[in-house]
C-alpha cells in the first residue's frame, strides 16, 4: 500500500550509499528527496518539513559506525521517525457502558457505513452482542445500505426511516439495544463537510446526547493535503478518540494518515481495505513505518502465514524440498495455500524488497488459474514425475487445460528453474533454515 513511497525513499537513500559518512552536503540532497517523496505521498507540507528537519538533525548528530553505511543509518532514522510519528504502539478501542456506544463520523464517501458493518462483524466475532443504528437521514438509501450489511453479517439494525431527527433515533436505538441486551451499539451517521456548521452541530449534539465510549473519525486514505484541516475541525468539535483509515488497498500512499496522527494527536485505531466484511485490521504503526520504507511487513506476513498454513503440510513440503522431491502436486498445494492467505499482490508487498516488484505487475489470484488448469490436466503420474512429459503429453495437457503448448512449456521451464533454485538452497546450509522458517510459519 505504501509502495510508491518506499520506491522514492529507496531512490533518495541510494544517493548516500557508498559514501563514508554523513555530512551537511550529502544529507541535504537526500533529505530534500525524502521531503519531496513524503509530499507526493500526500503527507502534509508542514508535517513533511518537520519530519525531514528532525531526520537531518538526527543524521548529523550521529556517529557513523564502521559497520553501518550512511544509507542504512538514515533508513533506520527515517524508520524510527515515521514510527514515532504514527504513534509508536497500537491503541486499542475502549468499550464502556451498557450498551457501549461507538459513534462513527466523517466526510461523505469516506466509507463510514461499510466500516460500521465491518466493525460490527469484528466485535461479533469476539463474542460481543452488537447492534447497528442508522442515523444517516440524508443520503438516499443510506438506511437500506446499512440494513443490507446488517443482514449479511447477521447483526440487528435499528432504523426509523420516517424520523428526521438523528439524535432522537440514536437515543431510541440505545433503548432498543438495552431492551435486547446488546452490549455494543454502533451509530452510523451522515457524511458531512467540516465547514457545514449545521451538520457539524448535529454530530456534536449526537455526541453530547449519546456520551459514546468511543468516537471514531473515518477518513479516506487517499485524502490529500486537506486531510489535516478536516481532521482538525472534526477534532475541535468532537474530540474524537481514534481515527479509521479506509480504502487502504489501492495504490494510495496514505501520507494523510501520518499527518492526521501528528496534527490532532489521536491514534489511528483501524485500517480497512476492500469490500468484504472481514477486511478490517488493527493499526500497527511500527509495521506501517517499515512498509513505508520498503523494509517489508514481515511480521504481518508471518502472522498471516501462521493463521492459514497447515503446519503438517508445511513440514511435509519442507522434507520434500530437502530431499529434492518437490513435484507438481506440491506446487499445486502450495499455490492453494498462498491463495488462502489472501490477495497475492498485498502479500508480495509485505515481502522485503518485493514492494517495488508488486507495484509494477498485474497480479491477482486469477493469475494462478492457467497454472492450476495445466497441472490439473495432468495424470497423477505426470504430476509426480514431470520429467516424463514428452511432446504428445504436452499437447494433450494444453488441450485439456484450454492453454497452448507454449504455455505448458513455459510453466515446465519455470518449474524446472524453481527446482534448481531449491537444490542450490539446499546446498547452502543457512538458507535452508531460513526457508524452513518461512514455510513452517515459525
Amino acid at each position: 500500500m505504501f509502495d510508491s513511497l518506499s520506491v522514492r525513499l529507496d531512490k533518495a537513500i541510494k544517493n548516500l550509499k557508498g559514501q563514508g559518512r554523513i555530512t551537511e552536503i550529502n544529507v541535504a540532497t537526500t533529505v530534500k528527496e525524502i521531503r519531496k517523496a513524503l509530499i507526493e505521498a500526500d503527507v502534509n507540507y508542514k508535517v513533511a518539513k518537520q519530519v525531514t528537519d528532525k531526520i537531518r538533525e538526527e543524521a548529523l548528530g550521529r556517529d557513523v559506525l564502521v559497520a553501518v553505511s550512511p544509507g542504512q543509518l538514515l533508513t533506520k532514522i527515517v524508520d524510527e521517525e515515521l514510527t514515532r510519528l504514527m504513534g509508536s504502539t497500537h491503541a486499542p478501542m475502549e468499550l464502556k457502558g451498557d450498551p457501549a456506544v461507538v459513534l462513527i463520523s466523517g466526510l461523505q464517501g469516506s466509507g463510514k457505513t461499510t466500516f460500521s458493518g465491518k466493525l460490527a462483524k469484528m466485535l461479533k466475532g469476539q463474542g460481543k452482542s452488537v447492534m447497528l443504528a442508522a442515523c444517516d437521514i440524508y443520503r438516499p438509501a443510506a438506511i437500506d445500505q446499512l440494513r443490507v450489511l446488517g443482514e449479511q453479517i447477521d447483526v440487528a439494525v435499528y432504523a426509523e426511516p420516517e424520523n428526521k431527527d438523528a439524535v432522537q433515533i440514536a437515543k431510541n436505538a440505545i433503548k432498543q439495544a438495552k431492551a435486547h441486551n446488546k452490549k455494543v451499539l454502533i451509530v452510523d451517521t451522515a457524511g458531512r463537510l467540516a465547514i457545514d456548521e449545521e451538520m457539524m452541530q448535529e454530530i456534536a449534539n449526537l455526541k453530547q446526547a449519546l456520551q459514546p465510549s468511543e468516537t471514531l473519525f473515518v477518513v479516506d486514505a487517499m485524502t490529500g493535503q486537506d486531510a489535516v484541516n478536516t481532521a482538525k475541525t472534526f477534532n475541535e468539535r468532537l474530540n474524537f478518540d481514534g481515527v479509521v483509515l479506509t480504502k487502504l488497498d489501492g495504490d494510495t500512499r496514505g501520507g494523510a494518515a501520518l499527518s492526521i496522527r501528528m496534527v490532532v494527536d489521536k491514534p489511528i485505531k483501524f485500517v480497512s481495505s476492500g469490500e468484504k466484511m472481514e477486511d478490517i485490521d488493527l493499526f500497527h504503526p511500527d509495521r506501517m513505518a517499515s512498509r513505508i520504507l520498503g523494509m517489508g511487513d514481515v511480521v504481518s506476513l508471518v502472522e498471516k502465514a501462521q493463521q492459514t498454513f497447515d503446519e503438517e503440510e508445511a513440514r511435509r513440503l519442507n522434507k520434500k524440498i530437502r530431499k529434492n522431491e518437490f513435484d507438481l502436486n506440491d506446487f499445486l498445494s502450495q499455490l492453494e495455500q498462498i491463495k488462502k492467505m489472501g490477495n497475492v499482490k498485498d502479500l508480495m508487498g509485505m515481502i522485503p524488497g518485493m514492494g517495488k516488484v508488486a507495484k509494477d505487475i498485474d497480479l491477482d489470484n486469477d493469475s494462478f488459474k492457467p497454472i492450476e488448469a495445466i497441472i490439473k490436466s495432468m495424470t497423477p503420474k505426470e504430476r509426480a514425475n514431470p520429467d516424463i512429459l514428452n511432446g504428445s503429453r504436452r499437447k494433450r495437457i494444453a488441450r485439456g487445460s484450454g492453454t497452448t503448448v507454449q504455455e505448458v512449456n513455459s510453466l515446465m521451464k519455470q518449474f524446472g528453474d524453481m527446482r534448481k533454485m531449491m537444490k542450490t538452497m539446499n546446498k547452502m546450509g543457512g538458507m535452508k533454515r531460513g526457508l524452513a522458517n518461512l514455510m513452517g510459519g515459525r
Partner: protein
Amino acid sequence: MGLFGGIFSKDKKEHLDKGLAKTKENFFSKLGKAVAGKSTVDDEVLDNLEEVLVTSDVGVETTLKIIEAIEQRVARDKYLGVDELNRILREEIAALLSENNSGDLEDFDVPSGTRPYVILVVGVNGVGKTTTIGKLAARFKAKGLQVMLGAADTFRAAAVDQLKRWGERVGVPVVAHGMHTDPASVAFDTVKKAVEQQADVVIIDTAGRLHTKVNLMNELGKIKRVIQKFVDTAPHEVLLVLDGSTGQNAVNQAREFTKATEVTALAITKLDGTAKGGVVIGISDEFKIPVKYIGVGEGLEDLQVFNKMAFVDSFFG
C-alpha cells in the same frame, strides 16, 4: 470579470464563486501572506508560493513546473511586483488547464445528432458517482432532454435503491435488475430500452472500484463491449468522477481508468469543502482529458459545467 463576462453569464459566476469561496479565500489569503510587504519577487516569495501550491494538492511536479515558469519570468523582468505575480500565476495555471481543455462546455447539453447519447460513469468508491448522476439527470431533463438511467452498480449494498430514489426525485426512468445481477446486462438493457423509447441521453452508473483491482477494471471493458453490441459508437462519453479532496492518488486513478476504459471526461466533486481542488490542475496538465463538471455543494444546482477561465478566475479573484 470583464474578459470572461462574455463566456460566463453573471448568475452562474456568482454561484461558482459561492461554492469556491473557501478555495479562493484560502488561496488568496495565503498568496497575500506570501507577498505581504514585498515589492519584488524574491526567493522567499517563491518558497511561500511553493507552499501555497503544494498545500492545495497541486502536486510536486506541477508546482515545480509553475514555479520554474515564474522564475524564468522573474529573471527576464527584474522588477516584478505583487500585482504582476498575481496575474502571471493566473496565466501560468490557466495555460496548464487550457492546453488540454480546448473547448469548454457552455451549458448542460449533449452533441446533437447522436441519439441516444450514452454516458458511462466510473470512479473509485465514495467519490459521489450516483449523486453526480442524479444531478446530471436533473440538469439534462431541465434542458428538455429525455433521460434514462441504468443501475449497473449491482454490488454496493442498496446502490440500486439509491439510484431509483434519484430517478423518482428527478422524474426519469431507471432501468434496474436488482442487486448482484450482471452489470453488463443491466447496461445492455438500458441502452436497448433507450433506443426503443427514443431517449436522448443514457447515463449508466457503475460500482465504485479501486483502480488497482484488475478484475473489476476488466469488467468495465466488458460493459463497454456489451453496450457496443447495440449502439456501436457507444459509450459516447466515459465520465470519471474524482473526489476533490483526494490527493495525488487522483492522478493514479485517472491513469488507470483511462487505461481500462478510455476516459473522455472528468467530473470533480466535493469542491465546496476546504479542499482546494488543485488536483484538477495536475491532472489536466498530465492527461488530455477535459474537466467537464464540478460539484460545489449538495443542491441539484450545485453540479456545474466546468469553465477553466471562471475556475482560475475564482482562484485569484
